[in-house]
């Protein structure tokens, strides 16, 4: 085998990376110490960021990609993949993250958007995950090159309702494509502003052609198992772990809950003795203009 005949950054490698995360929990971390707690709890990857979404909400100001020093220290601290967030449309932040050796970029509505266009993700060697509220958004992100989709939910609230809404919306829209002929699929593609080939693919596969995780408001083992039972391929937990009273116990319990999501007796057991979950806020009380999920299009 000649080393010069290798191919890098293909769609198969990008989507394949996401597939290796299936059935797992990806945890937001802001320090190497938190990353180690996440890895020891059995997280499949960590998301390196400057502050968890609940704090980003509180602090206000412009939310940007994490400091390179923090990201490097986190990469150094763990053996599992390290992801990091870039602002929507900020392709230079993404270039920097790729140069730092990050395994996947989350083009995230949690950070302050930089452009009315999303990043042209096909141009990168490393894969991207993007948020979506519905099938149209999911297909647009996949067309731009996203190798993984997650629900947007409403980050930093600890209120799972929006993640539930978005997961149900995407699955419901895909179910409604079943049995449609090509003219009908064309009409849907036009209406939801999605690429026709992707709509056809969703119709025949009866799922998104990439891995689809739940994110945005998951705060307890029960929330995580709920998303899995609703058909998520895995779960992102943002503020839910390190804003809880006992992060280590919460991290362990959420990993267990995702793996045994259909075993109520076990869910009951792992939900005990965790202390208080993050306090959170009712997502429906957030004014329309301040909702993070409305960023991106």
């Amino acid at each position, binding site marked *: 085998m000649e080393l010069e005949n290798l191919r*890098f950054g*293909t769609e198969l490698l990008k989507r394949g990376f996401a597939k290796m*995360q299936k*059935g*797992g929990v990806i945890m937001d971390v802001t320090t190497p110490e938190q990353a180690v707690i996440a890895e020891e709890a059995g997280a499949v990857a960590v998301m390196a960021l400057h502050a968890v979404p609940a704090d980003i909400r509180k602090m206000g100001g412009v939310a940007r990609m994490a400091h390179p020093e923090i990201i490097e220290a986190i990469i150094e601290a763990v053996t*599992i993949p390290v992801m990091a967030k870039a602002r929507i449309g900020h392709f230079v932040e993404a270039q920097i993250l*790729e140069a730092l*050796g*990050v395994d996947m970029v989350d083009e995230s509505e949690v950070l302050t958007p930089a452009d009315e266009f999303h990043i042209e993700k096909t141009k990168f060697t490393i894969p991207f995950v993007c948020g979506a509220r519905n099938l149209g958004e999911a297909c647009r992100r996949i067309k731009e090159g996203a190798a993984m989709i997650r629900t947007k939910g409403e980050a930093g609230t600890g209120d799972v309702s929006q993640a539930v809404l978005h997961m149900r919306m995407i699955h419901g829209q895909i179910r409604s494509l079943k049995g449609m002929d090509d003219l009908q699929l064309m009409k849907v593609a036009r209406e939801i502003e999605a690429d026709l080939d992707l709509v056809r693919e969703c119709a025949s596969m009866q799922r998104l052609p990439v891995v689809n995780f739940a994110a945005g408001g998951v705060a307890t083992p029960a929330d995580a198992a709920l998303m899995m039972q609703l058909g998520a391929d895995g779960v992102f937990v943002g503020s839910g772990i390190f804003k809880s009273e006992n992060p280590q116990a919460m991290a362990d319990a959420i990993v267990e809950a995702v*793996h045994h999501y259909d075993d109520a007796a076990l869910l009951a057991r792992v939900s005990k003795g965790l202390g208080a979950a993050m306090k959170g806020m009712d997502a429906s009380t957030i004014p329309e203009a301040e909702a993070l999920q409305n960023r991106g299009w």
Partner: protein
Amino acid sequence: MARIGVLALQGDVSEHVLALERAGKGKVQVVEIRKSGQMEACGALVLPGGESTTIRRQLESFGLTQELKAAARQGLPILATCAGLVLVSQEVEGDSMVKPLGLMDIKISRNAFGPQRESFEADLQIKGLDRPYHAVFIRAPAIAQVGDGVEVLARVGEAVVAARQKNLLALAFHPELTKDPRIHQIFLNMLEA
């Protein structure tokens, strides 16, 4: 009909299920293993790709570690890919996060090729196959050292990326992500041997 169990704790389980069904052409039944007691009824096992730290931890949590070791000792054919390769090894170089199961006499270097940007596809010469095999390596491990009873099947540069020891077939790449059924067919042939 042969029943093949795919360890379904985490990772690309459904891809292996599909690949086995494709290669088996209706002659195999594929089941997902998530609970204690399910391995007994299987004639072969697959350890899929995923995160080895996570899967190792879940093996303990689901009480499957001893069952898996016993199955390997009894000579059940086992296909281990990527994270699975790390799990079946004797030793993992300089890494205390994964305690391997010690089923195969090999030493592993985890993430041997670097982060995801170094993940690659390559046409691989594999011993026993007449044409190259298009292989997909994702944050792949490599076999750094092989013991006496281990047959090396493929290399990338110096790194060993496929090997066999009796009933164990271990790969650093992902045959379940491509449509070429030849690797899964080799594995199915091990059931008949």
